[in-house]
């Protein structure tokens, strides 16, 4: 049953050193505020999972929180490389980063299988390509009816899933809409979950019959953080801060510049800074 906590309490309660952590969000609803708190609490040896690791993972990796990254597309969308991720992979700075690389289809299926309580996912994929040569977690399985060879990968079952959503109600149920990505799957696949939301409401209304809702008993901790997805966006609340994504390229390019920026903008700040960003970027 979900509990309403402060962000610091929520991270303490759900994320431990050495955990496998999936912070998901497909451009939309990326849980940046929660990621900052993980950095402030100096979590170590995390195995990070995400289909599309972007800035928040670049920050976690650059601050030495992670030993491993499982991903399918790692970049700053429309801008370029993730310099901290590349520095960790290529130079082991600040600490070596093991990578497990998949395709989007593979990871989407692996989350889906995790949500479904299965040990593995099967799909038609990885045909004629090199990733199976460098990733031992890509195997083949034969359809017992047709003889077709399919790809098989382990289900993703993280210790904790971290997502950002539009709303929670006072009973601790969570509502999201728009580009919903794999967030519901990640929460259902995980042992624990931390959900930050734009607002807590009395009722989800207007209620549609088939809305995307995570019941309170599937969620561990909920934190209200207006703007908590910034520089990502929350449909209905504020737009994506594209300028921030572009600016990140220069900030992350240099180790010292990165560390200084993190000190000023993350380590010495708290989740309250996100509300101002929401206000600035609120849709007209």
């Amino acid at each position, binding site marked *: 049953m979900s509990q309403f906590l402060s962000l610091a309490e929520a991270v303490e309660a759900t994320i431990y050193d050495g955990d496998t952590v999936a912070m998901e969000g497909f451009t939309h609803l990326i849980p940046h505020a929660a990621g900052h708190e993980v950095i402030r609490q100096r979590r170590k040896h995390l195995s990070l999972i995400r289909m599309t690791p972007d800035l928040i993972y670049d920050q976690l990796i650059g601050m030495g929180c992670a030993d491993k990254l499982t991903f399918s*597309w790692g970049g700053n969308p*429309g801008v370029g490389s993730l310099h901290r991720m590349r520095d960790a992979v290529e130079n082991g700075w600040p600490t070596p980063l093991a990578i497990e690389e998949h*395709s989007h289809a593979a990871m989407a299926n692996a989350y889906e299988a995790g949500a479904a309580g299965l040990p593995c996912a099967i799909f038609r*994929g990885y045909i004629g390509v090199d990733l199976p040569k*460098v990733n031992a977690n890509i195997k083949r399985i034969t359809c017992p009816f047709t003889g*077709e060879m399919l790809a098989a990968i382990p289900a993703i079952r993280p210790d904790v899933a971290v997502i950002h959503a539009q709303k929670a109600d006072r009973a601790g149920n969570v509502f999201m809409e728009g580009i*919903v990505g*794999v967030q519901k799957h990640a929460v259902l696949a995980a042992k624990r979950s931390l959900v930050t939301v734009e607002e807590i409401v009395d009722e989800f209304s207007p209620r549609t019959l088939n809305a995307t809702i995570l019941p309170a008993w599937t969620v561990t901790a909920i934190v209200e953080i207006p703007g908590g997805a910034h520089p990502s966006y929350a449909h209905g609340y504020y737009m994506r801060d594209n300028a921030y994504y572009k600016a990140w390229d220069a900030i992350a390019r240099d180790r010292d510049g990165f560390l200084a920026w993190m000190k000023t903008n993350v380590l010495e700040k708290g989740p309250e800074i996100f509300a101002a960003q929401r206000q600035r970027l609120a849709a007209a």
Partner: protein
Amino acid sequence: MTSYTPNEMMTVAAARALKSSDVCFVGIGQPSAACNLARLTHAPDITLIYESGTIATKPNVLPLSIGDGELSETAMTTVSVPEMFRYWLQGGRITIGFLGGAQIDKYANLNTTVVGSYNKPKVRLPGGGGAPEIATSCGEIFIIMNQSPRGFVERLDFVTSLGHGEGGAYREKLGVTTKGPTRLVTDLCIFEPDPETKEMIVTSIHPGVTRAQIEANTGWRVRYANEVVETPIPRADELAALRELHARTKRAHGDQA
């Protein structure tokens, strides 16, 4: 006759290959510009699908990311990412997959993973994303890439997504039933697969481009179709639509575009 840039020629040439009846899996960047140009000109009913889950989206401005709010707001509906890859892509409902890449070889295999060796890369690229399964699940594949010797290589460092493999019936031998890359549009020309060998050969050259220019920007020995045509130049209405699209995008995103 207005002048145009090589990039405009490339985008227009790519857009022309799309039809209103197509269901198109669209990548961000040049593929997205070409697909939306087709929608705004000769293919108004084309169905554009982005891997973020947006189905039949009609963005008024070009999205900067694969999951811009504009895509969801203007879509017929938005599904989860697992559903997108399972029911829509793997389900065989996409007629055209539109890809770009960092490196391509003469069989239109693509690399967006690493330059150099996988474990000690010279350049770590973003990775495959949707491409490995787009390349085999869509009815056919269009590729759009600027031509350069570094990008058009004799041998890929890493095969991220399958084109025609080693040529001939390579795809069929792997059990793949889709056509693979049927069109590669660059800033210089258009390649299409030789019917037998499946090597990508030049079938159309953009106005003012020479064979020497093409060869200087290609890392393999370029072959040409028996009849090579000249790509028709961008029409005024095509250029106008494309420029308005980019202008709208710039107004909406400001410096961020």
